[in-house]
């Protein structure tokens, strides 16, 4: 229930954002079903009573219609399906939407190649045509997955909070190096294992466990302040390794949500992992750099300000743990 309302709110937020533009996008799908053959789906918003926006797809001139377009009106939208063939495929050719310039509509384009790779584009009145990309080569693929990995960790507040918690516990540089390395090795192992399909973790309990790992660090940070010691404080790399295994499964779910290429899985996995490490190191250096800057500027923080990061980690960890556990229970029932 909570999740539903949560996601609905999320959708509402982005919907209202999109509504501000008042656009009803048209949709063009090109699916390669056999060599050089494409199924075309073209949807245009209707204007009621069999009227439609005057938007037309202009495929390259040397495209041959294998089947003639069949048109239907569905839910006030005009949809057309047909199949085309072009010698050499569509790669490198330009597809134009006629009439787009004189409307306020956008067109979403999704092209799926035979090997499952896709190209997604949004066409606007100011840019009413696009060029079909060839199958991404290895470097293109590398760039994509590198960016995905970096994006994934930098946008994953949960992973970042865990790393922040570790930074707050770790005492010196040598220990920091060991801890970050242990976390890296551990999540790389599970990321690989899960992506290659040797093991898997169901998402709800996994999320709850990741939340728990963040919560776990909260009390440990308080122990550091009080000058107490514990297993975590003496050997933070052990904890980093153990929970790192969990976070690896989390990264794997992120990678799966995007989809792996049919070929070159290992290559994509490696690059995604490297991307994650780049993002993680970036975050670590950012935090260390900020701390160093504050020392250089000789800022004397009040006590409560010093306690803030630790309490943030603990509080959010606790909140997510409760939330995810409730969700988990709801899921089982």
């Amino acid at each position: 229930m909570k999740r539903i309302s949560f996601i609905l709110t999320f959708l509402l937020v982005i919907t209202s954002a999109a509504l501000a533009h008042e656009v009803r996008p048209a949709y063009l799908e090109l699916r390669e079903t056999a060599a050089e053959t494409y199924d075309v789906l073209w949807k245009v918003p209707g204007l009621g009573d069999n009227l439609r926006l005057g938007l037309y797809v202009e495929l390259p001139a040397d495209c041959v219609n294998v089947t003639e377009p069949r048109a239907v009106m569905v839910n006030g939208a005009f949809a057309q399906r047909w199949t085309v063939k072009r010698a050499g495929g569509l790669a490198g050719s330009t597809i134009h939407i006629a009439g787009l310039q004189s409307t306020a509509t956008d067109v979403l384009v999704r092209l799926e190649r035979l090997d499952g790779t896709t190209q997604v584009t949004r066409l606007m009145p100011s840019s009413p045509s696009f060029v079909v990309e060839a199958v991404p080569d290895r470097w293109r693929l590398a760039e994509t997955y590198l960016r995905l990995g970096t994006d994934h960790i930098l946008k994953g507040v949960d992973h970042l909070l865990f790393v922040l918690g570790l930074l707050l516990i770790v005492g010196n540089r040598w220990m920091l190096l060991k801890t970050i390395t242990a976390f890296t090795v551990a999540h790389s192992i599970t990321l690989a294992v899960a992506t290659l399909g040797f093991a898997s973790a169901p998402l709800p309990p996994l999320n709850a466990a990741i939340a728990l790992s963040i919560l776990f660090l909260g009390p440990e940070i308080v122990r550091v302040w009080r000058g107490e010691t514990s297993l975590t404080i003496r050997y933070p790399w052990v904890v980093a390794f153990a929970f790192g295994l969990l976070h690896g499964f989390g990264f794997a779910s992120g990678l799966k949500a995007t989809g792996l290429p049919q070929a070159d899985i290992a290559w994509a996995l490696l690059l995604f992992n490297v991307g994650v490490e780049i993002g993680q190191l970036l975050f670590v250096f950012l935090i260390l750099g900020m701390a160093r800057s504050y020392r250089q500027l000789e800022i004397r923080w009040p006590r409560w300000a010093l306690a803030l990061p630790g309490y943030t980690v603990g509080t959010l960890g606790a909140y997510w743990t409760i939330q995810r556990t409730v969700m988990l229970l709801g899921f089982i029932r």
Partner: protein
Amino acid sequence: MTTTSQKSVLWLALLAALATPTSAWAHLQAGEAGGFLSGVHHPISGWDHVLAMVAVGLWGAQLGAPALWLLPVTFPMVMALGAMMGLLGIPLPGVEIGIALSAMVLGTLVATEKRPPLWVAACIVGFFAIFHGHAHGTELPAGQSGLLYSAGFVMATGCLHGMGIAIGVIHRWSAGRLVLRVAGGFIAAAGVYFLVSGLA
């Protein structure tokens, strides 16, 4: 809940998902990067400019301490002032001759290792900097991203300068001093050539 509203929600969600990554990158467009590169390209595209800039750096290295670091700090600003005059269409007579003269005069100063007082040196360099800047300013292409073009332009000039100073490090050794003076002579000769071909 009707299916149409459901669908439109999904549609708009998809649209938003598609829109977010692009909007962030929209800022650094290919055209802008191109503007930066063409800005970098401009000061290094003509030998008369390049030699004069390097000569300023060499002379700074010869003059030593205050001039050495005063020049790279003030020169870009004076030159930009000239470029601004050019952009605004404020006329400056004899720009091409001034530029050719600058290579000749600066080259001669390096070759003879002249050591005028700091303010005299600054005036000489500043005077020619205005000419160089003005020439660039009037040649700048219309439209496009002014900022990145300007930044590229300033940076390239600064780097030419830095190159002169870096070469000037050899001024510590007596052999190096000789090399610098020969280089100055070469630049002065090139200046004469520019002047003659400019007047012809």
